[in-house]
C-alpha cells in the first residue's frame, strides 16, 4: 500500500472496524480478514494495527468484548458493536458521504 493511502486509512480505521462488526460479533483475526476482503486487498495494513483501534473503541463504549471458548478449544476475545457503536457508525457514514462528495466535486474541477 502506498504511504499516503496508509495514512488516509489510519484516519478512518475506527469507522472501518465498526463497519466490519456490523454483521455480527467477531474476533480480531476475523475482523482483519473481513476488512481485507471488503477492500479487495487495498487495505493491507499490518494486522496488529487493528488491536489498538479495537481497544480504543471499547474504551469509548462503542464496542464490547468477552472471552469465548470456540469449537477448537482455543479461547478468543470476541468483539460486538454496542448500541452507541451502531449509532456512531451511522454518523461516520453520513459524515464520510458528505466529505467524499465534497472531495469528488473539488477534484473534478472544471471537468464536470
Amino acid at each position: 500500500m502506498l504511504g499516503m493511502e496508509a495514512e488516509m486509512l489510519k484516519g478512518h480505521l475506527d469507522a472501518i472496524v465498526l463497519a466490519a462488526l456490523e454483521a455480527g460479533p467477531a474476533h480480531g483475526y476475523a475482523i482483519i480478514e473481513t476488512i481485507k476482503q471488503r477492500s479487495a486487498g487495498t487495505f493491507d495494513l499490518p494486522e496488529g494495527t487493528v488491536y489498538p483501534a479495537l481497544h480504543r473503541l471499547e474504551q469509548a463504549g462503542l464496542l464490547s468484548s468477552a472471552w469465548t471458548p470456540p469449537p477448537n478449544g482455543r479461547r478468543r476475545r470476541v468483539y460486538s458493536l454496542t448500541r452507541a457503536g451502531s449509532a456512531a457508525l451511522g454518523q461516520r457514514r453520513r459524515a464520510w458521504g458528505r466529505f467524499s462528495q465534497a472531495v469528488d466535486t473539488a477534484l473534478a474541477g472544471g471537468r464536470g
Partner: protein
Amino acid sequence: MSGVIDDYVAALRRELDFDPALARRLASEVEDHLQEAAEADQAWPSADAERRAVERFGLGREIAAQFAVDSVDRQARRTWVTLAVTVVVTFVAMRVRVIWLDDDVLGVAPLIDRYAFITALAVGVIAWFAFRRSLTALAICLGGLAASIGAGIVRVDLFANGAPIHVLLPAAGEIALLGVLSFHVIGLGRRLRRTALLRKPELRRTAQ
C-alpha cells in the same frame, strides 16, 4: 511450534510493561491471532509459517507505541478528574477548618495554606486550557496542594487539637485524594516516558 510466536508475544508483553493488565490481555489475544494466521499458512506447521504470521502482524514496538499514546490520554483524563476532585475537597476542608478555628492565626502556615492552594488552582486552570498532557503542570498542582494541605493541618494542629468529626473527615479525604493524585501523576509520567521511548525510532525515521 517453533517458538517464533512465543518470542514475539513475550517481546510485545515487555513493550507494554507500562500497563500490566493490558499486556496480559493483549498477549492472549495476539497469541490467538498469530496461531490462527500461522495455521492458515500453506507451510503450517513450520517456523516459516509462524514467521510470516508475525511479519504480517507488524512490529511489536509500533503496535505498543499506538497503545501507549491511548494509554497516556486515558491516564491524563484520570489524573485531571482526580485533580479537580482534590481541589474541591481541599477547598471545602480549608473552609471548614477556618470556620471551626474561628481565629486568624498569624504565621507562615496560613500563608502557605492559602497561596499554595491558589498557585495550584491557577496552574491547573491554565494547564487545562493549554497543556493538558503536561507532567510539569500537574506536578506543580500536586506540590501546591500537598503544601496547602500540610500547612492547613499544621496551622490548626488538627489531629492534636481535638477537632470534631466534621473537620477531621474532610481533612482525611484531602489526604487520601492527595495519595491517589500522586499515584496518577507518577503513572502519567511513566506512560509519557514509555511513549517517548517507543516512538523514538519512528521519529528518527521521519527525520531522515
